[in-house]
């Protein structure tokens, strides 16, 4: 909701720490965050639409603006392997990828989190082959939900930068020590120029200091330990449970980082963002840059007198279950809008299953539906989201049960047909 006048004044004052406002693409913002965080090792393999992150970092290093080792790896599997090893040696380590590249490094995603190595990755979200498609959807990101990473979604270019700055602090926090991925919607954020207020190196390093107290690299000749051991059935399970607890408890550090970021720089971040939810009757849950479109739809619906609201998930992992439940508790009907498909699942839109389960175990059942749209970079128009809200309204009023995901915007297909299948 819009800020009050006093708050705006306050923000202006806080902005004094900010030196300048520039125009930047999401990719440039990501590279800038890496530079400001004084990353020691970056290993990046080129893939569209992420390439400019690698190019820009290489440029910073070539110009002496960033003192880092850039490893020109021969593939994404090696990219993540190298940064995990670099982090284990005590370096602040970064990689970036997209789509097929993320799939190619998939094996290492689990190893990064299981070895508790605080690497930070930028993910320019993009559809998965086949057919080959370089445009935006969230299939790649949703494929890494089970890999034990902390996942932050960005709505705009500023959030790409801010999330990455916070990611270094969260990942390397001695109570966390987990890898963090920050998404930027392929093209929609990676290649779109928006205003950006970078904080500069001094501020970033004071907010996310390198090698914080209590953090020590695991590969140290003076304290040799064996990392990546064989875990027999006697011990494997215990290691896995520790990961469960670590990810659960990382929530506190993520919240703390978002709060302090707000205090220092005027842009506060929570696990979720609520938009027009105070009196909302119909709510959509979405994430990434798609959330901006939903907000625009909410504005239109409000003008029509429909009490619409929306929830943006900034953090997908650990899932902000209490926050989402609390936000949806008082609405009359809710739905999800996502750019990915969970093929063959009970409900084919994966965000929905998580939220429905979170509500159901608390005994909260109300009219609900799930929507898929925007696959492979298909544009989602605000008017279409308005229609989705109206569909949800109709479901609320009729009380009918929606058992399948609505695949909105498929050519020559009436999404209502799926319900009969």
């Amino acid at each position: 909701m819009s800020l009050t006048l006093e708050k705006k004044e306050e923000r202006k004052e806080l902005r004094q720490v900010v030196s300048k406002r520039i125009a930047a693409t999401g990719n440039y913002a990501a590279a800038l965050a890496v530079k400001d965080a004084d990353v020691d090792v970056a290993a990046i393999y080129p893939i569209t639409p992420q390439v400019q992150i690698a190019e820009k970092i290489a440029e910073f290093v070539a110009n002496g603006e960033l003192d880092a080792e850039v490893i020109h790896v021969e593939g994404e599997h090696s990219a993540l392997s190298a940064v995990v090893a670099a982090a284990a040696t005590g370096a602040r380590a970064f990689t970036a990828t997209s789509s097929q590249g993320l799939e190619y490094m998939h094996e290492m995603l689990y190893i990064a989190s299981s070895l508790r190595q605080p690497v930070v990755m930028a993910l320019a979200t993009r559809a998965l082959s086949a057919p080959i498609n370089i445009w935006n959807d969230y299939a790649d990101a949703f494929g890494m939900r089970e890999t034990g990473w902390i996942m932050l979604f960005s709505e705009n270019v500023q959030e790409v930068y801010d999330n990455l700055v916070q990611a270094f602090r969260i990942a390397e926090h001695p109570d966390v020590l987990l890898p963090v991925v920050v998404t930027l919607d392929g093209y929609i954020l990676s290649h779109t120029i928006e205003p950006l207020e970078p904080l500069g190196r001094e501020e970033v390093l004071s907010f996310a200091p390198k090698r914080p107290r209590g953090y020590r690299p695991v590969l140290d000749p003076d304290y040799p330990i064996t990392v990546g051991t064989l875990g027999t059935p006697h011990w494997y399970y215990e290691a896995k449970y520790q990961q469960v607890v670590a990810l659960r408890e990382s929530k506190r550090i993520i919240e703390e980082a978002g709060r302090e970021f707000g205090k220092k720089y005027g842009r506060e971040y929570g696990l979720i963002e609520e938009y027009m939810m105070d009196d909302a009757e119909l709510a959509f849950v979405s994430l990434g840059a798609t959330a901006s479109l939903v907000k625009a739809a909410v504005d239109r619906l409000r003008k029509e007198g429909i009490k619409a609201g929306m929830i943006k998930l900034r953090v997908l992992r650990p899932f902000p279950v209490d926050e989402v439940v609390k936000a949806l508790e008082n609405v009359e009907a809710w739905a999800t809008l996502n750019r990915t498909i969970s093929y063959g699942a009970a409900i084919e839109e994966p965000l929905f299953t998580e939220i429905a389960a979170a509500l159901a175990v608390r005994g909260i059942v109300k009219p609900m539906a799930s929507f898929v749209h925007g696959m492979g970079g298909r544009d989602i128009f605000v008017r279409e989201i308005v229609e989705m809200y109206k569909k949800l309204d109709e479901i609320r009023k009729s009380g009918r049960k929606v058992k399948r995901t609505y695949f909105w915007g498929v050519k020559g297909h009436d999404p209502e047909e799926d319900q009969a299948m």
Partner: protein
Amino acid sequence: MALSKPVRTIWDIPREERFAPGHTMCQGCGAAIIMRHLTKVIGKDAIIVQATGCVEVTTTAFPRTSWLNPWLHLAFENAGAGASGVEAALKALKRKGVIDPNRKIKVVAIAGDGGTFDIGLQSLSGMLERGHNVMYVVYDNEAYMNTGIQRSGATPLGAWTTTTPVGKKLRGELRPKKDLIGIALAHRIPYIATASPAYPTDMVEKLRKAYETEGPSLVHIISPCTPGWRIRNEDSVKVARLAVLTGMWVLLEIVNGKPRVTVKVPKRKPVREYLRLQGRFRHLTDEEIARIQKMVDEYVEEINRWVGEQAIGPVEG
């Protein structure tokens, strides 16, 4: 302290043991001998990155470990990439003063033949091509022994494995071994060597030189596998020695592209002597053995031409 003096006799090999006992490697395992000597050479200030494989699973069953060095295992195919990451981190951290820039910390990658010749070849190639200061040690037992003796790109012609069984139509491995040294050479790295645990002074000296090399180095060591080669536990060193004496395994050193045979064999033994000790070659007929002999003869000729002398002599009559 890493070994800094040249190794001429067995007495030059450090007494200190840095490969802790209690691991679960087989009796007579060639890789165990290699690891024991490797850790003597590299000393304390070395970070080891190891690929998945026999050595990894037998030395690190939590909560036990055989390693007195900082040791990292990521996955099967990425010892080269992991070592690249450690090396890059050391470089950056030294430059930034986080680690004492005068301290020498060597990065050592260890992998088997599967993790090197096959699934790890891309990662190895990247590491060599980018010129990382890493020594890469391959213990080559000529098949996927950890998973139960499946054929790899390093399996020699005619060898039985569980995926190249001896049947009525097909009789063991159909192709000769992949030329790893040729692949390493193509990357123009400063130091490449082959070694054998049957020649410990030669092996340790080569490991020492690989350690001293600035830039990527690769030491390819034959590693007899008692269950996989179907040999008696007490025969593994004997078999490793016969590989050299028959010319099937030539002890080479290639410094900046210049090759040299380090252990010359004036009179070769027939390959039959090497093959007959091993159950994996038991099925071979005289004709098939003659074919392998011919292949080795050609290989020896090629090596002699390459090093510019008759380093490996004719088969003794």
